[in-house]
């Protein structure tokens, strides 16, 4: 009886990869622990070792194949002399497994995302309502054309461009240099800029955050990468007390031009300590800017703005978004304004505000709502502090309803702020109480089903929007 060898996932967020090389051939005797092949994702390369023993009956997916779904059959083992048959059972299983993998994967259907490849967009019912730009200012960047890139590439390009432009900009953090970044955001930057400007730090968040602040006081423009923002809790004192307050405490003398960046929010299946959104924590602090890009264009334009800004900026990235591709203007100086939200989808019945990965979910929810006859306006906040209250309030004055979506907890969250602001700015325009879609008020569980329940889902946004629309 043949044993299937399945495409493994190298990380919780990996959904597909490339078979770079087979190190065994059909007919070989396989002992457990033997390296069978090398697989590659945009983040890493890894060897796949045999778990079971037997003779390699068949290499199902050949060397060089790309986009191989996690959990699909890549080879089969069997008894010596056994003949490999692609039974219908196995074929069925394979399709089921790969669709399962896709269904489980915490990945947004790219089809509804503006700026995604046009082939995908054509499937959408109301894609005409998707706006490429909400403002004329931003429009000008798109006239010169766009190119497709991942969020990861956009961040790297932004940092590299700014480092070419300004010799006082440097990058430091754990594994940013020789390892090319824990999430490969800084891949290749050491080669270009050298070890004086792309600096591997010890695992010492409080120390290197403080060191970065001192370097900023001393005339440099540090980009400090936290492997994930969860670990920035070790360093939060320097972000809040040293970086954010010194300008004020010095009567305007001691600016601190520094970017603290790293993946924020839930990853996938990594448990409570590695999955948390800190937007409201940092947004609480006067003296900080807090930015949260959603797509690659946001990532590039906002990162460049963050580096050029003379103030401390907390830049909240998202691991799950790193590998997703979007269109980004090719314009050689594409910088987005800080403090402006973007209307991603125009609508008249309800306003949905979201930031980071939740923008994609909100857009998908808007598609569902459209089918139900509800026309939602989706606002990508982009900047949490300062918040573009004007754009949000103008939208609410039009739709009279607001749903706030965030990956963080409800208590004192961004949604709470949204509710207070809307009471202050458009109390008389509201036709329904503001609805908050948040992380459930529990630490993030590990089990797949519980994790899904804890995090805001498209259905939750749809339900909240229907609720405020009474439909």
């Amino acid at each position, binding site marked *: 009886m043949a044993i299937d060898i399945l495409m493994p996932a190298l990380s919780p967020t990996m959904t597909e990869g490339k078979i770079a090389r087979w190190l065994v051939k059909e007919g070989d005797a396989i002992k457990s622990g033997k390296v069978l092949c090398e697989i590659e994702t945009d983040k890493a390369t890894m060897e796949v070792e045999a778990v079971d023993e037997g003779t390699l009956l068949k290499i199902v997916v050949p060397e060089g194949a790309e986009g191989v779904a996690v959990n699909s059959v890549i080879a089969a083992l069997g008894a010596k002399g056994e003949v490999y048959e692609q039974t219908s059972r196995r074929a069925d299983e394979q399709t089921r497994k790969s669709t399962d993998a896709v269904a489980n994967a915490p990945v947004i259907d790219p089809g509804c995302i503006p700026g995604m490849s046009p082939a995908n967009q054509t499937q959408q019912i109301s894609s005409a309502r998707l706006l490429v730009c909400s403002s004329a200012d931003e429009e000008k960047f798109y006239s010169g054309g766009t190119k497709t890139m991942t969020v990861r590439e956009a961040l790297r390009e932004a940092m590299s461009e700014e480092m070419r432009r300004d010799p006082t900009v440097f990058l430091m953090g754990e594994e940013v240099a020789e390892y090319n970044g824990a999430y490969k955001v800084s891949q290749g930057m050491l080669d270009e800029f050298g070890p004086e400007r792309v600096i591997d730090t010890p695992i010492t968040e409080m120390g290197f955050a403080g060191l970065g602040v001192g370097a900023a006081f001393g005339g*440099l423009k540090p980009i400090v990468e936290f492997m994930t923002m969860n670990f920035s809790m070790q360093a939060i004192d320097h972000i809040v007390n040293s970086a954010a307050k010194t300008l004020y*405490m*010095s009567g305007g003398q*001691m600016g601190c031009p520094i970017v603290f960046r790293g993946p924020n929010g839930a990853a996938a299946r990594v448990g409570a300590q590695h999955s948390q959104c800190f937007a409201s924590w940092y947004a609480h602090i006067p003296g900080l800017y807090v930015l949260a890009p959603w797509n690659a264009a946001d990532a590039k334009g906002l990162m460049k703005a963050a580096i050029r800004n*003379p103030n401390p900026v907390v830049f909240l990235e998202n691991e799950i978004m790193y590998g997703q591709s979007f269109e980004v203007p090719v314009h050689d100086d594409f910088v987005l304004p800080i403090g402006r939200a973007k209307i991603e989808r125009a609508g008249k019945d309800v306003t949905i505000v979201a930031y980071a990965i939740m923008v994609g979910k909100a857009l998908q929810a808007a598609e569902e709502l459209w089918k139900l006859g509800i026309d939602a306006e989706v606002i990508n906040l982009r900047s949490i502090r300062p918040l573009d209250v004007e754009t949000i309030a103008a939208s609410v004055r039009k739709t009279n309803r607001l749903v706030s979506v965030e990956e963080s907890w409800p208590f004192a969250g961004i949604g709470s702020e949204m509710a207070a602001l809307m009471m202050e700015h458009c109390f008389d325009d509201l036709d329904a109480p503001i609805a908050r879609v948040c992380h459930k008020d529990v630490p993030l569980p590990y089990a797949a089903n519980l994790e899904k329940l804890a995090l805001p889902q498209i259905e939750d946004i749809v339900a909240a929007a229907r609720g405020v629309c009474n439909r």
Partner: protein
Amino acid sequence: MVSKTKSEEQKLRGSGDNSKLSVSEILKMYEDMLLIRRFEERAGQLYGMGLIGGFCHLYIGQEAVVVGIQSAQKPEDSVITAYRDHGHMLACGMEPGGVMAELTGRIGGLSKGKGGSMHMFSREKKFYGGHGIVGAQIPIGAGLGFAHKYLKDGGVNIAYMGDGASNQGQVYEAFNMAALWKLPVVFVIENNQYGMGTSVARHAAGELYKRGAGYDIPGERIDGMDVLAVRKAAMDALEHARSGKGPVLLEMMTYRYRGHSMSDPAKYRTKEELDHVREERDPIERLKGQLLRDYGVKETDLAPIEERVKEECLRAVEFSKESPEPDPSELWTDVLVEA
């Protein structure tokens, strides 16, 4: 009372030499120490009058540390310390009136009245604060050292901390990176025997000057009540750091005469202990004695200095009272640099 770690015996042999010091240079150190002493006494007085509020940590007793080190610095060197910072600012040459007016919370203060006693800065004098979180100034100091190195400006950062602060984890994070990357930093522990009410014996295991040993940071214990000994050690340490050999740790044995802050009656130590230090080890009296005994200086030579210092402190006090409170509109300024 100088002891050294083994690894450092060979390393810290600089050209620090007080024999070339001129009498006028020593008189300047005397004046700088006296200015701090008199300034702090005035600050204590203004506090008592209700003109200064909140926390106010006086430096009385520790003057030789900052004056000795400052006398060894070059203009390109930068300084950072914690909240017991008035002495450091005066030693850097920051205006006494501006410091005092900050203590009284007036617009003429160095932070326009928005920082207070613990938070003043001067880019011009390369004084980077003035930090209230115990130990946080140490990684920041390492970062200033990083900037000196990156910009190749030849400067060294002098990062001061208390004995209490030397127990913070981030101090060792900074030691590690500073040693690993050979940053030009001189770490100075001002061991005044207490972190608030807790004596060193009750808060610190081992000897503080050895605390860099695990990172191969040369460490030295110095009599911080002897300004000339401080100066010599600082010359060697600065030379070591400036030459690209990495950081140095100096433990300055000193003593604070007043309570931790104005509200501290200092019940955790005996009057005898304090009197003993004042009578036997006072840094200003000690230098005065040396000047009179070894440098041919007369009491009458010192009188004009004392007069000058007194006048300067009175002017600072006047300024700090006359300077108006900040305009209410100042509440909203300096939160962010306008891009």
